[in-house]
């Protein structure tokens, strides 16, 4: 024992000597600290400040003079996690006075921010920095405070300063890297949750050092829960940085681990408990110790005033005012009260009050993107604040299905640890073994206040009969809410569901209605009552699809396996649930959604949804509307084998739309618009020639959907940056463009940052879009080249003419040798054996050469260009000029659709150039090469035969040569974009029909008797949409207002001047349609149009459509295009108008 002690002493001394005598004491410490036993760690740490070099303390890095000096020292040699934690605790104990002082400032900062005293908060950050040196803590909070107080420009200016400092003072990339993401996360257009998920994926790569991975995850991945090893890595890096970052990392790691019950992190909790005795002002440590020690009876935590909470549970929902004392813990109850007793929030009220409306929106809907975004920004950008912890829990409770009442919420535990008081609302979220002790403590400290009693019921605990009377003061709504949760926690699911259903029989505020629905869904899920669960979720979510994310929709979909779907095939809710899940939660359910769509029809002995038209009254109307509107679409129906082709699918959709107009008149306009679009598209499609011949295809529709999901948010960021004047300087634009054109990677290496955010963002978006168009494995050009050409098709096409003449042989699978041509060896039996055999071998060699050329075309040429495929024909690229042009077109006011149009434009332009080059290459290289290959074969045969007759073989080669050239012509046509042989709708009569069909497709009973007086006219160009819209309006008017809804007579007359058409459409009207009222109405519309008011009144004019007609015809011609309309006597109505006319021209159809 004494020997060991001496040895330890000598270790301590020897390490001290090593440090003192080293030229780099810090390095010596890093290397030697592993030699120190646990009992000497504190001694060494206490001694370290006495070591100085050149008059400066060796641990000055704990108070860095500049951001550039943060975490610059080398990492200490690794030690066990338990020891790393002990070292950290020792350092914190040695710096306890400063850390206690820091925590006081930190709490002041919280209060100032959330009371809206931004200037004071920012100057407090200056004070903290001057006292404790630079830190990531200050940096992170300053970004968030600047964004809220002064906006994007101010926080970007701060980012710029940091990057300058880090660049000037010797390239410290870590602070610049963190600053970049702190800054990005604060931008209003950034979704912090998505950014966090993106970074989590990035750090999951094996190329990131494990210490850095853990460090960055803790700082930038919001829901990262560190294990003990991660914590050790974080602390090892923390040791090289600011003491306050080191300390905060320790506390955050402990808080997150404990709230998720990470058992292996026990040394961390023990360390925190030990530290709590030294740093007594940090209540978080006291709370961690309290939970770690399994709720000891204690009175160290302050009590909070529960009057607001008591009022809330007693049904007195008085909305709190700005004057109420600011306590982070009670914010969620203030917000809930606000959601029931809403009031106006004045702009000068504290920041925390400005957030009430967003919180209220979430409590009611759970899916408000704007409100979620607002709160998420606070939660992610002030991660260490008490206030953010409360918001985080509030958000989780109201937006996540994982916050079901049966779960112990880790976020609630974190909110408790962050708060300064003893919080009753923690009770239901504790492990069930701890709940009785905590309830006892609450009753002892607070007494049986109604809020405390509510939490006991919510936790599923039996209330002491002594306090049973307290239940009578609770509002029935709250009591139901608490009892339903309590029953769920005690696994009494029938009772929980019954209470929730019963609660909804009364009128409930929306916030409680949602809660009761969620409780019932949780109970049904536990009982595996799939049919009822699907019915409940679909009923709620069809009115607002995003709501389904609040319910166990995903779990429900997961349970809908083949057997369950079969059993419930006749339940319309099943396909609805799968559709909601596909659209809102996880698109991997798209396939079984389509099966469920069809199974439902089959269960009714139907094949097509239009057949539902005769049995509409058998279903819940809202569910049927949803089914027809969102499931009976071509994208879903195409998975049904009932349909023979695209046109049948589209016609079925038209039939479905006609039903929808009948049963869902509120959305008639939308259905009519879709009908017109399908009708137009069908006409365009019918005019496209050679659909089968062209094999060049890109699924632009699918890529648009991809872009919506993957680029829209980045585009909004780009626009916001441009609006704030960030980026887009000409020089950086040119540099970024040059990099992009040169194919250099931009910002792909970890810690490498873009030089100019806005420009790099734009360039990267364009590159991603083009990459998707070319290389996406499901929708891109490469897939279609692969499926339609490269794999077998090309070979089959080019070998066929030779196979027909028996000129080509096969390769042996085992040896790769080509077989000799036995067919011609037999046919040439008039020659001597040697000659015939040599020819047969020659044909074998020819076959090898021929196939090699085909393989080269497929493998080297018909490919997307890359460094591995340098000879590829498809090099989709852009020039610096094109990108500059695009950048200048996409300014701060551009829409996302405009950006996509421009991006797709770049793609098509580039593809067009490739295809033109391919055509030239086919003519100049490929065809001559194949021609000469066959020509040489013929010559070789002659040479081998040496004058002996080979007429039959010669003839076969020539026939094959012609066939190969024809095959190459066909192949060349594969590389043309489909072209319309005629203008899609070429004649006036066609255009008239499109407009009429737009009406009759929806209203099949409308079948006017048309009389046409139309002279011979040139073909129209580019007017399909305009003409079909105009004629749709007119025919729909006739249907609605003529008084003859089915077969009115209609006369169409067309006249023509040099560049104008004069069109008159008259229709008969029934008796009584013309009267004083209708005449006056027409006069009013005339008057409005004459005054130029029509642009404003289009949406409000009701159903006549005449002002819309004026808009469609346009008013920017000189002289103006005429529009006239009115009654002709009492039996007719007329519309007369002019249109300008351009000659037709051929045009390519893209995509």
């Amino acid at each position, binding site marked *: 024992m004494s020997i060991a002690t001496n040895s330890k002493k000598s270790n301590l001394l020897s390490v001290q000597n090593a440090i003192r005598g080293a030229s780099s004491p810090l390095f010596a410490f890093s290397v030697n600290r592993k030699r120190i036993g646990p009992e000497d760690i504190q001694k060494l740490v206490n001694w370290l400040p006495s070591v100085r070099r050149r008059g400066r303390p060796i641990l000055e890095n704990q108070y860095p003079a500049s951001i550039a000096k943060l975490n610059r020292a080398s990492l200490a040699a690794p030690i066990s996690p338990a020891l790393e934690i002990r070292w950290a605790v020792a350092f914190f104990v040695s710096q306890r006075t400063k850390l206690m002082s820091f925590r006081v400032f930190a709490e002041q900062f919280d209060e100032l921010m959330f009371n809206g005293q931004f200037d004071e908060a920012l100057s407090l950050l200056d004070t903290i920095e001057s006292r404790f040196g630079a830190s990531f803590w200050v940096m992170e909070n300053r970004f968030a405070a600047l964004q809220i107080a002064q906006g994007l420009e101010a926080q970007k200016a701060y980012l710029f300063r940091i990057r300058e400092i880090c660049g000037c003072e010797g390239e410290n990339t870590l602070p610049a890297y963190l600053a970049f993401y702190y800054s990005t996360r604060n931008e209003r257009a950034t979704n912090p949750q998505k950014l966090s998920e993106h970074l989590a994926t990035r750090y999951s790569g094996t190329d990131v050092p494990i210490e850095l991975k853990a460090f960055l995850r803790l700082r930038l991945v919001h829901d990262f829960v560190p294990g003990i090893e991660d914590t050790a890595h974080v602390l090892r890096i923390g040791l090289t940085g600011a003491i306050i970052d080191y300390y905060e990392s320790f506390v955050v790691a402990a808080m997150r681990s404990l709230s998720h019950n990470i058992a292996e992190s026990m040394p961390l909790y023990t360390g925190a408990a030990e530290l709590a005795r030294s740093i007594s002002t940090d209540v978080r440590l006291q709370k961690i110790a309290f939970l770690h020690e399994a709720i000891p009876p204690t009175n160290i935590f302050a009590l909070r005033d529960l009057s607001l909470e008591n009022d809330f549970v007693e049904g007195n929902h008085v909305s709190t005012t700005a004057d109420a004392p600011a306590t982070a813990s009670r914010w969620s109850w203030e917000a809930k009260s606000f959601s029931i007793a809403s009031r106006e929030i004045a702009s000068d009220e504290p920041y925390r009050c400005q957030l009430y409306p967003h919180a209220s929106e979430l409590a009611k809907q759970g899916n408000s993107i704007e409100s979620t975004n607002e709160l998420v920004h606070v939660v992610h950008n002030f991660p260490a604040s008490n206030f953010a912890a409360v918001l985080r829990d509030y958000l989780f409770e109201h937006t996540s299905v994982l916050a079901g009442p049966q779960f112990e919420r880790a976020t609630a535990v974190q909110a408790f640890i962050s708060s300064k008081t003893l919080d009753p609302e923690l009770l239901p979220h504790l492990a069930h073994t701890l709940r009785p002790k905590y309830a006892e403590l609450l009753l002892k400290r607070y007494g049986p206040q109604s809020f405390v009693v509510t939490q006991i019921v919510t936790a599923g605990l039996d209330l002491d009969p002594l306090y049973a009377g307290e239940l009578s003061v609770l509002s029935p709504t709250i009591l139901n809410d608490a009892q339903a949760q309590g029953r769920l926690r005690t696994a009494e699911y029938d009772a929980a569901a019954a209470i929730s259903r019963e609660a909804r029989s009364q009128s409930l505020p929306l916030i409680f209605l949602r809660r009761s629905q969620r409780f019932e869904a949780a109970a049904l899920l536990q009982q595996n009552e799939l049919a009822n669960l699907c019915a409940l979720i679909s009923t709620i979510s069809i009115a607002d699809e995003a709501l389904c994310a609040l319910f166990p929709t995903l779990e429900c979909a997961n349970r809908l396996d083949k057997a369950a779907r079969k059993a419930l095939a006749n339940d319309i809710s099943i396909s609805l649930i799968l559709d909601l899940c596909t659209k809102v939660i996880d698109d991997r359910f798209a396939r079984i959604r389509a099966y469920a769509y069809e199974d439902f029809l089959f269960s009714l002995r139907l094949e097509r949804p239009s057949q539902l038209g005769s049995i509409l009254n058998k279903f819940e109307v809202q569910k049927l509307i949803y089914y027809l509107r969102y499931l009976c679409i071509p994208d879903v129906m195409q998975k049904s084998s009932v349909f023979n082709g695209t046109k049948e699918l589209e016609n079925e959709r038209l039939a479905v739309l006609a039903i929808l107009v009948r049963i869902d008149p509120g959305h008639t306009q939308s259905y009519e618009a879709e009908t017109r679009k399908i009708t137009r598209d069908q006409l365009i499609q019918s005019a496209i020639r050679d659909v089968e011949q062209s094999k060049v295809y890109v699924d632009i529709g699918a890529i648009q959907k991809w872009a919506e999901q993957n680029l829209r948010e980045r585009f909004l960021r780009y626009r916001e940056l441009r609006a704030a004047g960030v980026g887009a300087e000409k020089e950086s634009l040119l540099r970024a463009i040059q990099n992009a054109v040169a194919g250099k990677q931009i910002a792909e290496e970890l810690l490498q940052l873009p030089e100019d955010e806005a420009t790099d963002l734009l360039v990267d978006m364009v590159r991603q879009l083009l990459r998707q168009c070319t290389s996406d*494995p499901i929708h891109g050009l490469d897939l279609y080249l692969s499926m339609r050409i490269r794999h077998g098709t090309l070979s089959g096409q080019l070998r066929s003419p030779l196979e027909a003449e028996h000129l080509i042989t096969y390769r042996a699978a085992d040896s790769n040798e080509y077989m000799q041509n036995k067919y011609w060896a037999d046919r040439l039996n008039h020659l001597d054996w040697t000659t015939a055999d040599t020819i047969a071998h020659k044909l074998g060699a020819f076959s090898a050469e021929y196939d090699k050329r085909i393989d080269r075309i497929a493998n080297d040429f018909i490919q997307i260009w890359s460094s591995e495929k340098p000879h590829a024909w498809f090099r989709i690229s852009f020039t610096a000029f094109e990108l500059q042009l695009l950048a200048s077109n996409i300014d701060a006011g551009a829409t996302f659709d405009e950006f996509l149009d421009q991006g797709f434009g770049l793609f098509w332009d580039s593809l067009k150039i490739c295809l033109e080059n391919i055509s030239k290459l086919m003519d100049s290289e490929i065809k001559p090469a194949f021609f000469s290959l066959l020509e040489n074969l013929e010559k070789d045969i002659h040479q081998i035969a040496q004058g002996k007759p080979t007429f039959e073989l010669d003839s076969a080669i020539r026939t094959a040569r012609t066939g190969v050239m024809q095959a190459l012509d066909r192949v060349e046509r594969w590389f043309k974009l489909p072209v319309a042989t005629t203008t899609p709708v070429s004649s006036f009569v066609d255009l008239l029909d499109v407009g009429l069909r737009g009406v009759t497709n929806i209203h099949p009973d409308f079948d006017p008797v048309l009389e046409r007086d139309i002279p011979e006219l040139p073909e129209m160009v580019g007017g399909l949409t305009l003409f079909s819209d105009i004629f749709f309006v007119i025919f729909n008017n006739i249907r609605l207002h003529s008084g003859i809804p089915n077969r009115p007579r209609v006369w169409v007359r067309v006249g023509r001047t040099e560049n104008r058409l004069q069109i008159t459409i008259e229709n008969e009207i029934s008796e009584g349609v013309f009267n004083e009222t209708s005449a006056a109405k027409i006069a009013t519309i005339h008057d409005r149009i004459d005054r130029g008011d029509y642009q404003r009144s289009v949406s409000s004019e009701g159903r006549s459509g005449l002002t819309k007609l004026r808009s469609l015809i346009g008013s920017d011609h000189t002289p103006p295009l005429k529009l006239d309309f009115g009654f002709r006597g009492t039996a007719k109505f007329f519309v007369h108008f002019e249109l300008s006319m351009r000659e037709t021209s051929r045009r390519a159809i893209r995509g």
Partner: protein
Amino acid sequence: MPELKRVLLVEDDEPKWTALYKCLNSNFPSFDVHLERSLQGAVRFVRGNAVDLVLLDMTLPNFETGADEPGGMAHSFGGEEFLRQMDRFDITTPVIVITQFEMFSAANQTLRLPELDNRLRSEFGDVYKGAIYYNAAIHDWEKQLVKAMHKVLGG
């Protein structure tokens, strides 16, 4: 030699189906071979008709392409979808996959033929009887196909 059997050939590439026809004609002249050129056509046929064997391409258009029909969605794993639909309708006809691809790409996955073969075996083991690599220039596929058909159909 097996007696008269009905074979459904699911293939959209003309040179390939011509070669397969030729092979079937010379090796199984009594067989009734029905061709479907699309995924949905094949599903429709197999739902409505008794078939002894399906010879299945892996990459298929949704609908049969033609002058007025672009074919709808392209399925890299159309053969797999066909097998799923068979499972959905409880159809137990044996299936042999014949593909010109050695590698298959789809969202977030690239599979080589042996990997796809394993996947199909584990998911559709009752009906899936293996995959044959077809190459117009190599004669071997024909032998493999005939052998596999004999094994599946007996004889």
